[in-house]
């Protein structure tokens, strides 16, 4: 119960951050990626602002044995760079460069009452599902 409420609050803050920074605007994102055109470097500062918080806070938090509301930290073991990581990140980057939406903004934009985010959401979830069908089938 506490964990679900905390997740709701974290989701609200995350979505607010995407709105305030205009990361939820695909045109803004595409102008950020357009270094050869009318470049808008703003979104570099979104990641900078977020990292300024997480790099410091995560160090302190991960010194703890356990989180406050649950038994353990669930973290991926993040060492090996493999082909799947490189190919997946490339495909994601191509999609991002085509539409200006990454997953967070697609979700928050569902609240805007517009049609495009709904289409993007459905196609993105279809991408999750096709990946699962091909690569995550249980024996």
């Amino acid at each position, binding site marked *: 119960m506490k964990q679900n409420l905390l997740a709701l609050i974290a989701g609200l803050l995350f979505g607010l951050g995407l709105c305030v920074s205009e990361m939820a605007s695909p045109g803004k994102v595409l102008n950020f990626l357009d270094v050869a055109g009318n470049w808008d470097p703003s979104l570099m500062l979104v990641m900078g602002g977020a990292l300024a918080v*997480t790099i410091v806070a995560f160090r302190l938090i991960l010194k703890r044995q356990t989180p406050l509301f*649950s038994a353990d930290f669930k973290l991926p073991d993040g060492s090996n760079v493999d082909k799947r990581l490189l190919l997946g990140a490339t495909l994601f980057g191509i999609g991002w460069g085509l539409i200006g939406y990454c997953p967070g903004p697609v979700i928050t934009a569902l609240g805007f009452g517009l049609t495009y985010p709904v289409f*993007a959401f459905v196609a993105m979830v279809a991408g999750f599902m096709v990946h699962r069908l091909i690569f995550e089938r249980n024996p």
Partner: protein
Amino acid sequence: MENFTPVSALIGGALIGLSATLLLLFNGRLAGVSGILSGIFVQPAGDRLWRLMFVVGMIASGFLYQFFGPGGFENYTDVSLPVLLVGAFLVGFGTRMGGGCTSGHGVCGIGRISPRSITATFVFMGAGLVTVYVMRHVLGVAQ
């Protein structure tokens, strides 16, 4: 550079960082949005509700900001519908294959100084830059 908005970008980014910090400190989870969302469909029943709550919070923020706050977000029709569908499919497929997106790798993974995430972030940023360059300056497609 007339569209440069450094202050709102930094404030928005800090809010995203705060969200990721709370989720890790209290729940022990990383705020990787593609993993949280896809997990609603694939994780066991007991691991679904918090994910749904996070997603509901994200959508609620969008709704509140658009209709009760400054708002101003419009349909981005410069991208054609077929391109939107193909691009979003690649975003979904690619983030699962690569194990994360802008938040999971970019904000949380780099926040943990993970070599995997630092690599992934450079790769998807690079692919995004090249894609926009090809679309706008080679093919001349409006977007």
